[in-house]
């Protein structure tokens, strides 16, 4: 007999969601988190697409510490001197507020508390050292030499899953499968944020940027989200191009983003509150690890369920949904009292039908296209010069749009063949 039906390692969105699901069905659940309180290791914030929470916390929109709902979404190319954007605002988001900015410290603490209220035993301030494995089966977790047994162990350690890797349940990610994410939080007044971003009370701004002004052929994207009285912003940097350059530090890229003429005025006067850098997993379908086996499952970032298009990073939504699916699988397995690999393969059946896997499949190879000179150099340069020619009156006779476009294309470094090839690949992948 095990001491717990399930032991969950890590109280991020994935682990807490799994624990809430299982505990609310009466299972004996242990949720172990190294941060004290939960969330204290997860700084900064992001946009939560929280629809999946409906299934376990129907009241989340009323009770969770949400900052602002996304009303305005901006996608921009930033060149050295210009910003070219699509600025999408819709009243529709007012009714279906599925995207909210959150600050992780508060949000993770909320989720862990809900797990505890649902009946899970939440132990924070403790790091799991490893897995207890007997006859090829995971039978529990180890801390300071003691083994705590559980019928099933759910690993929700986040993007750097030491425990899963040490047990050989996941390999170390390849350089091509990870990016560096740098995040900062700036404090500003609520009034200043509303005014600068043209927002009301709870409405928010989510901006994503291609940083095409970067030198030395480094590719990076940026993001900027408004919270109540803070701004979360950061950069996502392609590791290969950063390594190839070798001289530029990720901090420099963050700094240049903050200093960009059209970004700096958004955060002007703000005080820096938090700063952190992380590896982020953005591997495709091919590089996913098998997320289950004898007595265990991998959820959230630990399984590789995050998604990046080079500007935004999404992962909380997949973390939550995969956590819930793992929870459902344990509930079923408990009924049959069967925690074998075969029984837990029902987790995979669920995943195959869910966005966590489908998005990866459908956008397979996406990051190879996104991290390209087409997106990061040619398109922005072309847009900048053609818009420049179109929109300014300089006393010369007007030209046809196609002439302007062709001229701009020829001013970029890419050959026409490259352009067609990369453009076609991008279309196919989108």
């Amino acid at each position, binding site marked *: 007999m095990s001491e717990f039906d399930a032991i969950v390692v890590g109280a991020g969105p994935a682990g807490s969601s799994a624990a809430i699901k299982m505990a609310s069905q009466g299972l004996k659940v242990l949720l172990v988190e190294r941060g*004290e309180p939960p969330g204290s290791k997860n700084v900064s914030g992001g946009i939560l697409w929280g629809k999946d929470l409906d299934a376990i916390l129907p009241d989340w929109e009323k009770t969770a510490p949400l900052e602002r709902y996304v009303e305005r979404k901006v996608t921009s190319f930033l060149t050295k001197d210009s910003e070219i954007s699509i600025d999408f605002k819709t009243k529709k988001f007012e009714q279906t507020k599925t995207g909210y900015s959150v600050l992780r410290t508060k949000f993770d603490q909320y989720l862990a508390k809900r797990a505890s209220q649902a009946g899970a035993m939440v132990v924070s301030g*403790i790091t799991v050292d490893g897995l207890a494995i007997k006859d090829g089966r995971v039978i529990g977790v180890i801390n300071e030499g003691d083994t705590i047994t559980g019928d099933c162990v759910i690993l929700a350690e986040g993007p750097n899953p030491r425990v899963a890797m040490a047990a050989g349940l996941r390999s170390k990610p390849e350089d091509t499968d990870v990016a560096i994410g740098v995040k900062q939080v700036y404090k500003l007044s609520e009034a200043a944020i509303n005014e600068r971003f043209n927002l009301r009370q709870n409405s928010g701004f989510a901006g994503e940027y291609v940083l095409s002004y970067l030198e030395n052929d480094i590719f990076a994207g940026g993001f900027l989200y408004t919270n109540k009285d803070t701004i979360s912003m950061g950069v996502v940097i392609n590791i290969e191009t950063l390594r190839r350059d070798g001289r530029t530090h990720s*901090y420099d890229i963050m*700094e240049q983003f903050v200093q960009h003429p059209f970004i700096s005025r958004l955060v002007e006067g703000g*005080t*820096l509150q938090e700063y952190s850098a992380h590896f982020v997993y953005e591997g495709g379908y091919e590089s996913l690890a098998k997320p289950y086996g004898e007595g265990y499952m991998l959820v959230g970032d630990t399984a590789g369920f995050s998604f990046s298009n080079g500007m935004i990073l999404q992962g909380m939504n997949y973390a939550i949904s995969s956590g819930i699916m793992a929870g459902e699988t344990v509930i079923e397995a408990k009924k049959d009292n069967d925690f074998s690999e075969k029984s837990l393969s029902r987790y995979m059946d669920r995943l195959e039908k869910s966005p966590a896997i489908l998005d990866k499949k459908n956008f397979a190879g996406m990051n190879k296209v996104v991290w390209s000179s087409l997106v990061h150099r040619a398109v922005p340069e072309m847009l900048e010069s053609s818009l420049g020619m179109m929109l300014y009156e300089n006393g010369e006779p007007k030209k046809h749009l196609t002439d302007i476009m062709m001229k701009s294309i020829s001013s970029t470094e890419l050959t026409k063949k490259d352009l067609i090839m990369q453009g076609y690949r991008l279309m196919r992948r989108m």
Partner: protein
Amino acid sequence: MAVEIIVMVKQVPDSQEVVIDPVTMNLNRSMTRNVTNRADENALEAALSIKDKIGANVTVISMGPPQAETTMIECLARGADRAILVSDRFFGGADTYPTGLTLAATISKIGKYDIIIAGEESSDSSTGHVGPGVAEFLDIDQITYASNVDYEDGYVIGERELEDGTEVVKVPTPVLVTVLLNSNDPRRQTLRRKIDAIRKGFEVWNIEKVGLPPEWVGVRGSPTIVRRMRSIKEKERAGKKYDLTNLGELVKELYEKKVLKMEEE
């Protein structure tokens, strides 16, 4: 009969929670979380090493709001046998005098005690009054600022670091000891013990249980009147950056601003 050790712990805002801004190199304190006063972790460790040696009973007591529960569980997870949180709205706003009185009354209610161990001071108010105050209320001997605590046949042996050497004092129990911050290396909490601690729980004592009249404790029992509080303004920095490959410019500017002086002046 086992030796009874009582450890006094306080929950404080985390003073370690500072983030260094890598750009400006400024310290910055954001979201404060609550932690156990660090010197009190040393006090608990001193108690636990005596327990390791002679098999004593260790009881942790704290006066504080309900959120101090995390500190109670943490102390149990490090190895304490019992934890009592003294918590009641009447105790709120206490200065060091009623804090000492309340803790002393709690200790008397516990009954038997041989050694009481406290931290040298708290990191948030840093008066260092409370330990000695408790000793005075209980009318027992005290050893303050100990760097090491040991027990032998009814005596506590405390080491005190002095400027010109170490003073070793041997005092018969019962005795109160305050220990220096960083005087030992606190053991870690373990998952096993933390699970047991959550299952077992800790005690919460209210004012009736402690047995003191409300007018003796909290704000009403506090003789101190805070006249005025001043906050210290941080000096604005110009935020200018210098090219370190061209130190001449920096030196020249410091000279012009009279920060540096020429040798002959």
